[in-house]
């Protein structure tokens, strides 16, 4: 038998639940009173999508054209008669044109493994006891939602409801056809973040002359091993977190792999204090774990290195002390000492992304034993085997058996030594 939660906690949550119910009841009552005085949900008029189309980001490949844009709060009100952004949902308008001889299916979990169904979003704006109005809301959402399949020769537009992302939406569009996948990755500006929104996910770039483009793996490895071990603070002084991973690949391929495994852009104030190449991180991502708790983070810096023309990112991967159990919105995140664990689990996660092509370990971080840990910004300590996991990401959907392990630095997870344990007592 499964144990019940301890009584005090259970009582608290029941109490919380009852309070919430009471709150809901009061809210419902206020809505009903409101209904008496003014109209409830009204079907919006025809939506003029000119502006939406003008800012949509477009791409074409293999006989398929896509265009997509993030709906603003205002778009949402005009289109749905309510601002669904307020319910913790981001609405994406997508248009797909299929000029292949095969039907196509948009795979929603590829855009967001936790996407929302149209009626789920509709349900969140239902009014209690307003059956007819609710049915009209459902109809309206169904009409506007994106519908599969896209038949040969057809052009189809609709809305996808996914979890929100700020500034730049990385939109992964995986189109399944009979025996094939046509993937797109688009970077969409988020309109309500207008001042800072951008369609380029990374504003930084190097002049060509500053970039070393390596043509073979041995030279790349040597180049990676020469990169700095760690971040610094804004003055280039104190040691920051270790740079314990590398991504090699086209930006869309890297983004697609990360989206498929629920990494979302989520920079917090604490991230900005880590500096590499004289600047803060170009992108920060956090893994959306169970119950939406952000845990593992990745801070990425574009490196002045290329490999066969593909981008190279220097990455810090770590997780906060407390992991998923840190309260949401907690500000004082502290790096957990076992940074290798976070790195190794990132590798495992990427194996399931369908984008991992090659994996190798390079040196460059420098080992720090548990008995002689290093101190990072803010006073956290960490230990590491000193290796940098290098992940090569590709477009082609790959399976678990396609990953090539490079014969670089040998890698082992080592158990604790008695000395290591004693030193901590």
């Amino acid at each position, binding site marked *: 038998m499964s144990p019940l939660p301890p009584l005090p906690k259970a009582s608290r949550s*029941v109490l919380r639940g009852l309070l919430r119910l009471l709150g809901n009841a009061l809210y419902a009552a206020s809505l009903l009173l409101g209904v008496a005085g003014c109209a409830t949900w009204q079907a919006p008029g025809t939506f003029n999508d000119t502006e939406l189309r003008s800012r949509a980001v477009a791409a074409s490949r293999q006989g398929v054209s896509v265009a997509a844009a993030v709906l603003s709060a205002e778009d949402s009100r005009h289109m749905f008669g309510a601002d669904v952004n307020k319910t913790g949902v981001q609405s994406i308008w997508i248009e797909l044109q299929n000029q292949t001889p095969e039907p196509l299916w948009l795979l929603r979990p590829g855009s967001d*493994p936790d996407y929302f169904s149209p009626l*789920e979003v509709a349900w969140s704006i239902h009014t209690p006891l307003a059956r007819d109005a609710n049915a009209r809301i459902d109809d309206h959402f169904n009409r506007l939602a994106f519908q599969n*399949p896209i038949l040969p020769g057809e052009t189809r537009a609709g809305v996808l409801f996914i979890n929100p992302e700020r500034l730049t939406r990385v939109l992964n569009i995986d189109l399944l056809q009979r025996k094939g996948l046509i993937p797109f990755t688009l970077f969409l500006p988020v309109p309500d973040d207008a001042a800072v929104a951008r369609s380029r996910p990374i504003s930084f770039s190097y002049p060509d002359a500053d970039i070393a483009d390596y043509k073979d793996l041995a030279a790349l490895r040597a180049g990676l091993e020469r990169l700095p071990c760690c971040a610094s603070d804004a003055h280039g002084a104190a040691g920051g977190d270790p740079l314990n991973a590398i991504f090699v690949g086209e930006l869309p391929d890297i983004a697609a792999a990360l989206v498929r495994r629920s990494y979302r852009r989520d920079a917090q104030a604490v991230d900005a204090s880590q500096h590499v190449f004289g600047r803060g991180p170009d992108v920060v991502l956090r893994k959306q774990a169970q119950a939406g708790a952000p845990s593992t983070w990745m801070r990425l810096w574009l490196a002045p290195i290329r490999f066969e023309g593909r981008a190279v990112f220097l990455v810090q991967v770590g997780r906060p002390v407390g992991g998923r159990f840190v309260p949401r919105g907690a500000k004082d995140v502290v790096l957990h000492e076992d940074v290798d664990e976070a790195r190794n689990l990132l590798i495992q996660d990427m194996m399931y992304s369908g984008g991992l092509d090659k994996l190798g370990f390079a040196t460059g971080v420098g080992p720090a034993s548990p008995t002689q840990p290093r101190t990072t910004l803010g006073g956290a300590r960490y230990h590491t085997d000193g290796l940098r996991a290098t992940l090569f990401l590709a477009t082609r959907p790959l399976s*678990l*058996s396609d*990953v090539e392990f490079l014969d670089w630095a040998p890698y082992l997870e080592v158990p604790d030594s008695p000395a290591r344990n004693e030193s901590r007592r």
Partner: protein
Amino acid sequence: MSRIVGLVLGAVAVALALVGCTSMPPAMSLDYKTRAATRTEGGVRVSTAALSADESATVYGVPLAKRSIQPVWIEIENREDRAYYLLSPGLDPNFFPASEASETVASGESPDQQVELGRRFRQLAFRNPVLPGATTSGFVLTNLDEGFKLVQIDLVSSGRARTFSILSIVPGFRADYRVTNVFRREVYPPGEIRNYTDDATFRTALEALPCCVTNQDGLKNGDPLNLVVVGGLDDAFPAFARRGWRPTEQKWSGSIIKMVTSALAGERYPYAPVSDLYMFGRAQDLALQKARDNIHQRNHLRLWLSPMRYHGKQVWVGQISRDIGSRLTIHSPTLTTHKIDPDVDEARSALAQDMAYSQNLTRIGYVKGVGTAPKSAPRGNLTTDPYYTDGFRGVLVFDHQPTSLAAVEFFPWEVARSTEESP
């Protein structure tokens, strides 16, 4: 041995030292090892057992089951020419890293105890890689499953993957005998089983199945039978496990109390029970669910093993729906039920799409048999939730070998379209 390992961080030396000796076994109770299930493929042998609440308390020294954490013991013997890596997200995409679990259970303890717990959890954890010639064992910490667990072991090496899936029975919990029966012995007499090797005949047989599940006496129709899963423990269920689908608890009073509490508080409770529905004269053989942010957002499905086989693989028929909230009802003895998304086709296609990312899905198809229910005239399920459908059932065929997204094939059958767009 661990002293040597600690002293020599130069990995090559460690590699040499580890070849030929097994890694440290957990010290205490060996019961779980005696009931461990073992499989071999190529030169790789795996043994595994999911620990009961008592066993995990003994091995870890803390009551992990109370935190909904369940250690799974895994031993891997590698007689091949390359190192293998065990992928923990394959067992449970929401698994607990050892350090995270130890932090959770140690919070509030003295600093010394926190250090000690951290050390114990690290020592017990499974450590990669498994070098050629080596045997390695350790634990992966997963979310708690009561009764049984689908243990999916994905091992990768350069250019190769070995995958194993094992049904592990968890002692000490309320055992689910029906499930064990379905997996462990034949439900149907041999004469009743029909193996289909021709796609057209198979399609006809699938279309001839009843439209819907029923209540216990078979008199009232409930949710539509909109799902056909072809495969079993070796291929279909690993796919579910990889994408975070987990067995549900059977309906019983304790979990109903938990569910009501969770529904009231809006908290995430991944383990809510499902009510029984009927097909082939019996309640579902297996119910799985995928929890999202909280109890209001879950997808769940029920499956019945059919007497059909497709190229020798088991054929399960079932029902899938998306929960978008809990509500009170007088049509269920528990007085609560899930508000389902009336567009049941959406839930069906959500599953097909989710499974496309599992690396085990090889074919998708749609057949008739449910009967259309237009939105203007929806049907009701047993708890009076309305639903509408294009009338198709989704057919998902799984295979043991990892399949990339690009290799998923379609049966040239029906093209599923939402009712909205049907002519």
